[in-house]
């Protein structure tokens, strides 16, 4: 990972920077409310908002139709900038087009890097889920995993599917998917257990959410399996588990930046017409939290910035 | 005989509701079904009307054996019924209930104006004046509800009219109106099956009398074969009522 330095120890309020003049920015993502990954993005965006004295509103909905409605709304409110994650670029094309036509600067984040420029966005921050998935796949392969169980906690969610797919590209055709319901952890444990009990070949589990990681850890214990566990994203429990060597590593996209940076960019653009990236996406990861750096990250995860 | 049963029987789970009952109703005749509570009267007429299917015996319409698969089946053969317990839809207005299943149409549409008017008129003709035919049936009094059901069955006059205790909830005046309707239907050549507890209501209009007791038939009598007194006493009680009046006087 890229270490412990974070935006929490925020840059000093710069007197040199041009006055932002209290703009209003809308962050619209495809994450469901309460999703631990997107919550950190929200925290980042809000921290930046506080930092620059601008108003940031955050909304998230996994349904592309709802997401584009939220963009429409932001456009009719004539906000000063829109930050949008594009899990389904096709569906958002029209809404983003409207924003661009209305001369509202747009920054895309997380996924959708390929379409970002074509849609007229200023820049893209983050990297697509499949890159992160590939990263996880490589680490798992290095740890000797030959057959991987990829636990999908929201059927049909594009981002989750892409993560599994990324891992699959590296590990070959030996990735099995398991669908679980994230709002019922007891069920997650017993389903993963069931899978491990019935398929002894599985020697790796990849969870895509920290809560699922904890449930999967229990499942591995219950079933007496030797499978190695890795997860996406952090929580205090996951960090503890990494320290206890129960979880191999956690993929860390540093999504805090995916909230913080776009607001910074938009503020700068508004005040100073600065653009960043020169047409290339700004990558935020993937980083990995392992036993080595878990200690440092632990506190930050607990504060909701990692 | 328009409608006839031969040794018909019906079981609900472990309950034998009806056993070996034979009866018939001819055009222009009134067959009265009499019996104590739980004797199986309603069950019998529900078989005639296609609500239940019989388990044993045969059911004949115009001499040919049939088996109704639904009330629609029976209706289509001209058998209209007023039920004791499943007559009306409480949340629907009076006029909608009145025409339910036989809605008048005007082009494609349900002819609402006609339906409202006819319902009001028919009810008035029966001596029931419902204030407001838009009132939900559930807010009518017990007797008003019964009257609406009867007015409906009479209005859609079929070949056979089955009435399950139509007069029990009615006042003397309304009961008289219903009996007159029964007589009029009979005179128009309909067959009527008339269920009642009241031999005083049954005797004046009945042509044949079927007596049920605990699910079995105690015989079917033609009017000529039975006196009102015999009928009343067969109905278990009869003159008892007179006697009761004495008994109930304060000691």
């Amino acid at each position, binding site marked *: 990972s890229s270490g412990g330095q974070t935006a929490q120890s925020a840059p000093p309020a710069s007197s040199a920077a041009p006055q932002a003049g209290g703009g209003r920015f809308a962050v619209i993502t495809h994450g469901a*409310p*309460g999703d631990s990954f997107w919550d950190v993005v*929200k925290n980042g965006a809000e921290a930046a908002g506080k930092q620059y004295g601008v*108003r940031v*509103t*955050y*909304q*998230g909905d*996994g349904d*592309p*139709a709802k997401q*584009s*409605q939220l963009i*429409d*709304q932001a456009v*009719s*409110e004539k906000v000063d900038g829109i930050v949008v994650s594009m899990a*389904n670029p*096709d*569906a*958002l*094309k*029209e809404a983003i087009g409207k924003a661009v036509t209305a001369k509202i600067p747009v920054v895309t984040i997380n996924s959708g890097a390929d379409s970002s420029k074509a849609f007229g966005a200023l820049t893209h921050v983050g990297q697509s889920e499949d890159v992160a998935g590939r990263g996880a796949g490589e680490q798992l392969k290095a740890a000797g995993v030959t057959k991987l169980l990829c636990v999908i906690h*929201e*059927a*049909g969610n*594009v981002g989750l*599917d*892409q993560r599994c797919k990324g891992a699959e590209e590296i590990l070959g055709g030996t990735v099995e998917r398991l669908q679980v319901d994230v709002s019922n952890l007891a069920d997650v444990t017993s389903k993963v257990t069931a899978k491990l009990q019935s398929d002894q070949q599985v020697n790796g589990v990849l969870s895509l959410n920290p809560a699922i990681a904890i449930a999967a850890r229990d499942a591995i214990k219950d079933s007496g399996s030797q499978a190695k566990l890795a997860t996406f994203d952090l929580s205090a429990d996951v960090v503890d588990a990494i320290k206890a060597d129960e979880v191999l590593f956690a993929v860390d996209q540093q999504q805090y930046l995916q909230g913080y940076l776009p607001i910074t960019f938009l503020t700068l653009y508004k005040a100073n017409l600065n653009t960043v990236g020169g047409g290339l996406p700004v990558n935020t990861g993937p980083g990995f939290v392992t036993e080595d750096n878990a200690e440092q990250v632990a506190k930050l995860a607990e504060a909701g910035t990692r | 005989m328009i409608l006839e049963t031969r040794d018909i029987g019906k079981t609900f789970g472990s309950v034998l509701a009806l056993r070996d009952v034979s009866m018939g109703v001819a055009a222009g005749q009134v067959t009265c079904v009499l019996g104590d509570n739980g004797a199986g009267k309603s069950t019998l007429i529900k078989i005639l009307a296609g*609500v239940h299917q019989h388990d044993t015996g045969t059911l004949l319409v115009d001499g040919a054996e049939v088996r109704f698969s*639904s*009330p*629609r089946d029976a*209706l*289509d053969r001209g058998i209209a*019924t007023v*039920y004791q317990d*499943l*007559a*009306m*839809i*409480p*949340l*629907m207005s009076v006029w*909608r209930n009145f*025409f*339910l*299943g*036989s*809605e008048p149409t005007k082009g*494609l*549409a*349900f002819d*609402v104006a006609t339906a409202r008017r006819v319902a009001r008129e028919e009810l008035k003709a029966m001596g029931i*004046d419902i*204030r*407001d035919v838009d009132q*939900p049936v*559930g*807010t009518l009094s017990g007797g008003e509800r019964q009257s609406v059901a009867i007015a409906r069955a009479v209005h859609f006059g079929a070949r056979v009219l089955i009435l399950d205790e139509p007069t029990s909830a009615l006042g003397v005046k309304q009961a008289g109106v219903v009996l007159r309707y029964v007589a009029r239907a009979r005179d128009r050549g309909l067959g009527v099956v008339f269920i009642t507890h009241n031999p005083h209501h049954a005797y004046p209009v009945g042509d044949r009398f079927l007596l049920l007791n605990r699910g079995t038939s105690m015989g079917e009598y033609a009017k000529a074969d039975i006196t009102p007194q015999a009928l009343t006493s067969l109905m278990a009680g009869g003159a008892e009522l007179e006697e009761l009046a004495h008994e109930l006087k304060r000691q």
Partner: protein
Amino acid sequence: MTVTADERIARVGLARRLLIRPELGAVVGMVVVFVFFAVQSPVFRSPAGIANWLDPAATLGIMAVAVALLMIGGEFDLSAGVLTGTSGLILVTLATRFGFDVWLAMLVGLVVALAVGFANGLVVTRTKLPSFIVTLGTFLMLQGVNLGVTKAITGTVQVSGLRRADGFEGANAIFAGTIQLGGTSFRVAIVWWILVTAAATWVLMRSKAGNWIFAVGGNEQAARAVGVPAARTKIALFMTTAFAAWLVGSILALRYTSVQANIGIGQEFIYIIAAVIGGCLLTGGYGSAIGAAIGAVIFGMADKGIVFLGWDADWFTFFLGGMLLLATLANRLVRRYAEEVRH
């Protein structure tokens, strides 16, 4: 006694009589919610804002109206939400992967949707299982089919690229276009919604079928006893819901030109909620199509209004819940005032 006036009817104002209609309580709820947001947010009451919140209200409304008919008929359809996804997926998959013309692809989608509705109805009427359970089964199965088939054909969980298909322009204009009204562009879905509501209201109030729908929902046995074809009525209702799901699925697919395999999941309850806010009884036999349409507006206004007010997204559902309670409570109070007792 005179024939014309009945001394037993107290004189009541027209206003009070009107309020007895199921939908008029909902209207009051709608006004309350509208005023609440409009006074606080100028954007909310601006034409652009109205166009914003009418749009989701329209697609929700089409479904809510169909679901309301079904609920009046005494049944539920939990598969309606996923079926919008199925219809959309069929449309986009056929048009982009198998080279179908958009119109033909839509036709295939319609046939499949109606078949699902028919199957729902048939199973419910034949097995006499509660429709809640039967359509729950359909819901789960369709969900699996949506995901399984999409994955099998495309390798991912979404299909896209409808924009390039033959016939897209025309279909898009009719189902997913916009109309200019005083400088603001409104979605054409709003027109569809009004059409569906009008048609449903006509059927309910002014057709034989409407009478049968109230009857099978109010007391199925009694309805059957007077010769109402209860099974056919119910099957037709399930097919109506399926039709609405197809319409909404096509509108959304044409608008967004791509469909995700998990679309529509969870929406089925929103439809029911809109219908109930609009005055439908969960037990059947009572309700109105206009009420359901208004229920959709209330839901849409609350849903979008909270965003316009800029309240914290974490508390979003809190406010939404409070809003819904207030709207239904207002509805209820109005009806209480209008009539003291009903059933």
